[in-house]
């Protein structure tokens, strides 16, 4: 197979990475796992002049849990590491679950969550969970860093808020308050190696009475050009009492805010129905988790 030639660089430190990125901002692509990027290069959808492999940048590897700050996952951390991490299982079990649904064992050992997020696919497995967690991204470049809520990261179909020369450095999932839980639900055509028809991450936080909704977030995937929050539904659900009517209403409102298309995997109509069912189930599971059931 003939590929358009590219140069290959493998920095060992953030300083080297940032220098390369600022010098080659317009022509370089970052290689994390390669399971998306190199497929696009092979299919000639992308023809970068340079590939910068971040696989050996130790400063981008790792997961830390801090009771005050929350869970920090550095951008080079492999999806399989997230899937099996004891910290992630404890503080963000829905993320561990979503990570386990991504691709195959091989893909999870190669790919990173940062790649999953930066690739910008509307059906990416980890994106709805990160939206539900209210994750904050650390975006860096030579000489500076900024923080961005993940809900502001995707701008349009496969277009992100990363400016030339910038890279995604870390995810921070704020520590969950008391009486709160996140759940993830998805539907694919088969059990593995598929692209989801619909996926959703929900955050539920209850008042002290354990029945009044204090806060909700709904992160929806594969029902629009980007993963996004159902903000109108969220506003309407706040303050409601949690019961079967609430679960049904949550599903209904999320579906109303979904804007799917017909494609090879499902019709728009079916996706809306799925969004309703999955959202209802996810809230029900989140409620059970808070109650310790």
């Amino acid at each position, binding site marked *: *197979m003939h*590929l*358009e*030639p*590219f*140069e*290959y660089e*493998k920095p060992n430190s953030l300083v080297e990475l940032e220098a390369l990125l600022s010098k080659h901002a317009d022509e370089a692509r970052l*290689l994390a796992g*390669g*399971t998306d990027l*190199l*497929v696009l290069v*092979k*299919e000639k959808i992308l023809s970068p002049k340079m*590939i910068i*492999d971040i*696989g050996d940048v130790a400063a981008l590897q790792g997961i830390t849990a801090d009771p005050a700050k929350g869970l920090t996952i550095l951008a080079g951390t*492999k999806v*399989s590491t997230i899937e*099996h991490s004891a910290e992630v299982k404890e503080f963000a079990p829905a993320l561990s679950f979503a990570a*386990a649904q991504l*691709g*195959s*064992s*091989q*893909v999870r*050992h*190669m790919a990173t969550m940062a790649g999953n997020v930066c690739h910008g696919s509307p059906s990416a497995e980890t994106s709805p969970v990160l939206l539900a967690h209210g994750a904050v991204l650390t975006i860096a470049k030579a000489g500076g860093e900024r923080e961005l809520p993940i809900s502001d990261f995707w701008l349009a179909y496969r277009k992100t808020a990363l400016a030339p020369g910038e890279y995604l450095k870390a995810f921070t999932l704020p520590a969950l308050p008391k009486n709160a839980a996140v759940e993830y639900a998805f539907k694919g055509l088969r*059990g*593995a*190696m598929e692209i989801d028809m619909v996926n959703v991450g929900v955050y539920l936080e209850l008042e002290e009475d354990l029945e009044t909704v204090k806060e909700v977030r709904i992160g929806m995937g594969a029902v629009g050009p980007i993963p996004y929050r159902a903000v109108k539904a969220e506003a309407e659900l706040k303050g409601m009492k949690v019961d079967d009517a609430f679960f049904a209403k949550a599903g209904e409102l999320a579906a109303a805010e979904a804007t799917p298309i017909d494609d090879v995997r499902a019709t728009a109509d079916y996706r809306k129905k799925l969004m309703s069912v999955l959202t209802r189930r996810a809230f029900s599971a989140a409620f059970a988790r808070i109650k310790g059931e």
Partner: protein
Amino acid sequence: MKKIITLNINGDDYDLAIKPTDFLVDIVRDTVGLTGTKKGCNIGDCGACTVLVDGRPILSCLTLAMSVVGKKIKTIEGVADGPELDPVQQAFIDKGAIQCGFCTPGMILSTTALLERNPAPTEEEIKHGLAGNICRCTGYVKIIDAVKHAAVLKTKEGTDVR
């Protein structure tokens, strides 16, 4: 432009002249000549090209050869200890888990990685671990049997006093 790099495959160092666009599967098969690693879909869907890099199962068709310099690469040729088959290989033979054999090297390396992390997987865990390896002869039942058998053989091997 080609560069001379060294790849460590199955414990041996190979000095190779490669281009940035060379993928590991092609270097392993065509340049080094270890054709046990199979090239199926070439876009990361079928798992036939699976090799271990520092013990992790990866798709050599989506891995740039330059990216694995300094790492330990294991292909199917490096699984057996001389004439002595690895328990995973023996289990695939014992259970008749091989038909045409094209997926087998990838299946065996994925199994090796799975059992390394989880020495006694459930059937669901086996399916989850091998979901990225496609068998076109549809021999999954025997393959799953073989993985269960391999887990038993490996545990025995670990406790045997030799």
